[in-house]
C-alpha cells in the first residue's frame, strides 16, 4: 500500500504532471479515520529547534552540491553525510518577530509581532489529527513551544526527563490503573453534561459569542475522543525498555539535558510510543559547564561579531551538534522490519532564527536528516529571495505517506533538486 502511494506520486512527478491528485484536504481535520490507520506505514517525524539560532557561517559549506567541503559543524556530522541534506536560503515568508517567531517555526503563520496576530496549527499537530490515534501518544512535545493547536495555542512541554520517562514506560499499579479507568470514564460523563450546559448557554448568546462557544464545543468533543482513546490504552501495558530512568540534569547542564532529550526521543520512537516529536534545545541564561565557555548562551548569540564570543559560541554549539550526531547514530543502529529507524524518521534540525545576532528570521539554518529522501548534498537557495520552508514540511508529509500537498506558505511539494526516494 505504502509503495503504491509513493510510486504513483513519483510517477506523476516524473511525468511532469501538475499536482492534481485528489489530496486529503488539509482544511478538514479527519481525526483518526479508519482508512488512514491501515494505509500508513510506520513513519515518523521529528522537529528540533534551536531557540538561539545556529551560527550559520559554522554550518553552511562554502559551495553547494554533493561534493561540498565540510563546515565545522558538518565535520561533526560527517558519519552521516549521506543521511542528511543541508539547506540554506529558506524561510517562512512574512514570519518575523525575532525570538517570537519560534511559535511560528512549525506553523508559518504570517504577521507575528502584530497586536492582531493569530497563530495557526503547527505541522506536527495537523499530522497528529490524522495519524495520532495509532500510538499511545498522538505527539510528544518534549520541550519548548513549537507545537500549536488549531486555535493558535502553544502546547506545553512534557517536563523533566524523569517525568517523561515514567510517562512513557512506567506502568501504574493495578489500583492506579483502575482509578485511571474510572477517571477517564467520569471525564466522558462530564463532557456529556457540559455539552448540555453549553447548548443551553448558546441560546442566550449573540452570533459572535456563539462562535466563541463553538470553540468550546469542538474542544469538548475532541477531549471526549481523547478520553475514549485513553481508555483503550490505559489497560495495555507500556513498552519495556532496557534503560534506567534518566536522572534530571541541572538547569545549567545544557549538554546533559540535550542528551537526556535525545535519549527519550530515541526510546519513544523505537517503542512506537509516538510518531511525532517536537523539541527545543534547552538553552538557558546560565553559563553551561562546558570547558572554554564562560558566557551564557544568550550572551554568546549576541556576539556582535566579536572574535572572543564567536570562538566560545563555536565550542558551545559544537557540543550541541555532537549530541545530535549521537542521536543520529542511535537512530541508524536501530532496526525495524529490516529498515533503520533513521530511514523511517524524517528529522528536521534547525532554527527559526537566521541570525540570532540581528534577530533575523530569514536564511534559516536547516538540516533534514533521515526519512525517505535522497540525501547527501547541500542545497543553497537565493539569499535574497528565500524559498518557503513549508515546501520541506510538505515533503515530510509525503514521507509519512500523507497525500497533503499544501501546508502554510508552501508553493510546492518539494524543492528544486530535492526528492523523495523512489
Amino acid at each position, binding site marked *: 500500500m505504502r509503495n503504491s502511494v509513493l510510486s504513483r506520486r513519483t510517477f506523476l512527478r516524473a511525468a511532469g504532471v501538475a499536482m492534481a491528485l485528489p489530496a486529503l484536504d488539509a482544511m478538514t481535520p479527519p481525526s483518526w479515520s479508519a482508512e488512514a490507520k491501515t494505509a500508513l506505514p510506520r513513519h515518523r517525524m521529528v522537529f528540533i529547534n534551536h531557540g538561539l539560532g545556529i551560527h550559520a557561517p559554522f554550518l553552511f559549506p562554502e559551495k553547494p552540491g554533493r561534493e561540498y567541503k565540510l563546515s565545522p559543524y558538518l565535520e561533526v556530522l560527517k558519519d552521516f553525510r549521506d543521511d542528511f541534506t543541508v539547506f540554506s536560503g529558506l524561510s517562512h*515568508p512574512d514570519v518575523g518577530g525575532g525570538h517570537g517567531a519560534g511559535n511560528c517555526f512549525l506553523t508559518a503563520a504570517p504577521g507575528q509581532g502584530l497586536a492582531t496576530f493569530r497563530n495557526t496549527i503547527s505541522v506536527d499537530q495537523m499530522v497528529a489529527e490524522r495519524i495520532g490515534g495509532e500510538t499511545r501518544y498522538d505527539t510528544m512535545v518534549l520541550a519548548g513551544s513549537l507545537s500549536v493547536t488549531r486555535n493558535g495555542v502553544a502546547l506545553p512541554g512534557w517536563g523533566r526527563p524523569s517525568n517523561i520517562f515514567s510517562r512513557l514506560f512506567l506502568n501504574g499499579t493495578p489500583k492506579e490503573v483502575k482509578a485511571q479507568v474510572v477517571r477517564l470514564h467520569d471525564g466522558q460523563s462530564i463532557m456529556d453534561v457540559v455539552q448540555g450546559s453549553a447548548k443551553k448557554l448558546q441560546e442566550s448568546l449573540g452570533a459572535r459569542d456563539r462562535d466563541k462557544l463553538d470553540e468550546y464545543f469542538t474542544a469538548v468533543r475532541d477531549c471526549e475522543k481523547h478520553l475514549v482513546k485513553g481508555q483503550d490504552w490505559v489497560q495495555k501495558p507500556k513498552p519495556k525498555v532496557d534503560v534506567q530512568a534518566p536522572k534530571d540534569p541541572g538547569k545549567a547542564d545544557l549538554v546533559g539535558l540535550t542528551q537526556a532529550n535525545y535519549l527519550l526521543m530515541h526510546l519513544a520512537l523505537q517503542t512506537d510510543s509516538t510518531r511525532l516529536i517536537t523539541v527545543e534545545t534547552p538553552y538557558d541564561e546560565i553559563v553551561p559547564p562546558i570547558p572554554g565557555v564562560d558566557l551564557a548562551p544568550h550572551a554568546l548569540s549576541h556576539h556582535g561579531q566579536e572574535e572572543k564570543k564567536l570562538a566560545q559560541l563555536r565550542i558551545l554549539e559544537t557540543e550541541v551538534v555532537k549530541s545530535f550526531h549521537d542521536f543520529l547514530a542511535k537512530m541508524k543502529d536501530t532496526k525495524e522490519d529490516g529498515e533503520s529507524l533513521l530511514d523511517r524518521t524524517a528529522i528536521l534540525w534547525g532554527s527559526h532564527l537566521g541570525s540570532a545576532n540581528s534577530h533575523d528570521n530569514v536564511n534559516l539554518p536547516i538540516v533534514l536528516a533521515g526519512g525517505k529522501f535522497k540525501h547527501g548534498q547541500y542545497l543553497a537557495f537565493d539569499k535574497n529571495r528565500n524559498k518557503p520552508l513549508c515546501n520541506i514540511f510538505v515533503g515530510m508529509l509525503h514521507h509519512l505517506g500523507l497525500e497533503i500537498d499544501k501546508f502554510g506558505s508552501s508553493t510546492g511539494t518539494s524543492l528544486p533538486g530535492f526528492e523523495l526516494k523512489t
Partner: protein
Amino acid sequence: MEMAKKHERTNRMPHWIVVPILLGFVVLRLGLTESTAADDTKKAVKDEKPAAPTAKDKEPPSKASSSPGASDEFAKIQPLLKKYCFSCHEGAKAKNGFQLDTLEPDFSAAKSLAAWKDVLERMTAQVMPPKKNPQLKTDEAKLVTDWIAGKVSAAESASKAVDGRVVLRRLNREEYQNTLRDLLGLDNNVKDMLPDDRSYNGFDNVGSALTVSSVLIQRYLDAADRALARFFTDFGPEPKVEKKKVFNKNEYRIKPELAESGKQYLLLKDDSVVYFNGAESGYQPFETNQFAARVPGIYKVRISAYGYQSNGKPMTMAVYAGEQQGGGLVPQGVDYFDVPADQPGIVEFSRYFKENQTIKIVPYGLGYNNIGNAAVWKGKGLAVQWEEFEGPFHESWPTPAHQRVMGKVDRKKGTLRDAEQIIRNFMPRAYRRPVSDVEMQPYLDLVRTRMRDGGTFEYALRTGLKGVLCSPDFLFLVEKTGKLDDYALASRLSYFLWSSMPDDELIQLASKGTLGTPEVLKQQVERLLQSPKAAAFTDNFLGQWLDLRNIDATFPDRSYLGLYQEYDELLKFSMVKETRSFFEELLKNDLSVLNVVDSKFVMINRPLANLYKIKGVDSIEIQKVTLPAHSHRGGVLTQAAVLKVTANGTTTSPVLRGVWVLKNILGQPMPPPPSNVAAVEPDTRGTSTIRQQLAKHRTIDVCASCHTKIDPVGFVLESYDVIGGWRDVYRSHDPRQRKKVEPADVMPDGKRFRDIDEFKAILLANPDQIARTLTEKLVIYSTGGTVGVSDKEALDDIVKRIQGHDYGLRTLIHEIVQSKLFLTK
C-alpha cells in the same frame, strides 16, 4: 515573590509570575499585517478549520457600508488615493502585496474592513505615504481619514449593537487559579497545569485571544482533579499551632564541619554559626533541614542573625522559601533583610508555607572567599544564631471557603441529600449568579448516578463538582449585549481589580439590584482596591502594560568577563518592587498619571539608590525619596525595570525602546516594517555606532517614515544601559567601542531636545496623550475587550473627566468603572 511582613496580610499568596516570553525584540523585519496578508489572494490558503470560523468572518452586514450614498463619497476619496498611493499600491506588483486599487469600500466584510483600518492607522500615524513621496495636503488627508474613520466607526457600532464590544471570554490561567482559591479555599498551584494564554493588544484577558482547545479542556479536568483532591484532604482536626526553634549549628551539613575545627564556618559562643561565602560561592549552607511545613498555612518566622566583622555596618541576607528536592532547596520566593552589626537582631516575617516548604538563608554580597581557616579569617561574615517557626495559623478551621462548600457535612458520612445540597449551594457561587433547577439537574444527576452505582459520597460529590468546574458557565464570563446586569457587573468589577470571582458583598448587592448605582459602584471600587486581593491588579495590569513579566527574559552579563558585574538578583528584585511601589503610590494617593512620564519622587531602596547615584538611602526597604536636582530620574521611563525589559541583556536598541515608548506610553503603536527590508545586523566591534547604522537605515525612504518617530525616542534612552544605570559613554572591554552616548535629537515635529529631561518636558506638553494611552490600556484590561475607532469619543470623555482632578490615577479607575464602556458589554 515577596514575603509579607505582616501577619494579617499573609492569607493571600502574592505570586509574581514571570512568563518566559522574550520581549518582541527588534522587529526590523516583519511580515505583512493581517489585513494585507488576507488580501493577498496569491497567498496560500492556511490550514484553517472551517468548523470554528473566527468572529470576524461572520459579522453581520452593517448598514453603514451599503447605504446608497456610500459610493458617492467614495468617488471623492478614490482620486486622492490614486494620486498619492497607487504609485506603489496598485495592481499585482503592489508593494508589500497591499493593493489599494481593488480595495472595495465595503466595511461589512472583515477583510476589507481590516484593510481600511490599516490605511487609517498608517495615515494617522503619518507613516504613509513615505516621507519622500508627495504628501496629501492637510485638508485632503483629513477628507480621507475622516471618511475612513466614519465608515469604520459605523461598521463597529453596528456590530456592537448586535454583539457588544467584548467577546465572550473565558477565565485566563491567573483568574482560574484565583477563582479556585476563593471558591474552594485552596492555595495550590493549578495554573502551571494550564497552557499559556495568548494575549491581544497586550493583555491576556481579552476574549478574542482566549481560545479553547481540547488540550485546555483535558487540563481543566486534571486541574479540577488536583484541586479537589487537595480540597478533600484538608479535612481533619485543626492542626495545632506549634513553635519550633532550630539552631544552625545542628544542621546536618554544618555540624560535622564545625566539629573539624570549622574550616568554612565559625561557631561562636552564642551558638551562632558564621558564614563567609555568598551565593556566588556555590556553598549554600543555611538550608534549614530541621523544619519543613507539615501542614500548609501561615507561619511566623523569626531569625536571629547579625553581621560579624562587618565594620559596624548592617549585613543583608536573602531568605528563600521553597521545597527541598534532592539537590537542595528550589526557591519559590525570596525576600531580603538587613540585620545589625555585632549584636543579634531578630528578623520577623509571616508567610504562607505550602506543604514541605522550608527556608534557606544566603548572606548577600559576600561573593566567594578562599578563607582557609574561619577562625583566623578577618573578612565579613553573616552570623545566624537560630530560626523559629510558629504555625500553621488559619483564619478558622476548616477554612471559611471550605465551610462554605461543605457546611457541617462529614465527607466520610455524607448522604445523597447532603451531596445534592452541596451542589445546589456551590453552583450559584461557581457561576457567579443565580442558577435555575433545570441548569442544576445534569450535575445533580452526575452525583446521583455515582452514588446509585455504589460509589462513595466523596467520589460522587467530587465528580459533580468537577463537572461544574468544567462547565462553560463557570469557565466563561457570560455577558449579554447592552447594559450589563448586576451579576455580570459584579464579575467584571472583581475580575478587574482582583483577577478573581466576586465576593459575597458584591453578589448581595447584585441580588438587591443596587450595584449599578454610581454611589454603590464608587464604594465598591474603594473597597476592592483596599483589599489585599487588589495586589493582583498591580501584578497583572502592570506586569503586562510595562512588560514587568519579562524581567527574567534576559540576564545582563555579570560573569568575570561581563560588563554588568553590579547586576544581581537583589537589584532585579528591587527593580520590580520599585515600579510596583511607584504604581501603587500613584493609585493610593490619587496622584497624576503624568507621573508616568516624570515624577518628583522615586520609590527606591539602597541597591537602586546606588544604581541611580542618589545619596541618603540606606535601607533594603523601599522608601519614597524626593529627587535631587539633575538626577535624570523620575517617571517610569527612567526606572531600571523598564529599562531592563526594553534591552536585551547585552546591548540596548534605540529601535526597540523607541517602539516600546511609542506603544505603551504615547499610544502610537508603529506598524511592523515591510518584509523586504534588511534588518540592521548588530556589530559591536566598534567600527560604527548604532546611530550611524540607523542613520543609514533612515536613508531608505520606506524606513524613514517610521524611524523619524522611533529613533529620537530610542536615542534619548541610550543614556541608560541595559540595567538602567546612567551612562555618558558606552561600556565595553574594547576601548574603541567606548564611544560617547549621543542622546540629543529632533522630534518629528521639529522640537529639539538635548537629553532625557528636555525630552520628558516635550512629552508633558501633551498631557492628554499620556492620560489617553493609559486610559485605553485600562479600559482594555478592565473589560477584557479591545477598543476601536468608534470608542474614541468615550475614551476622550474619560480623559476630560480626570483633567480637573489633576489626572489622578484613582479618579481614573473610578471614571472608567462609571463609564459606558465598562457598564455595557
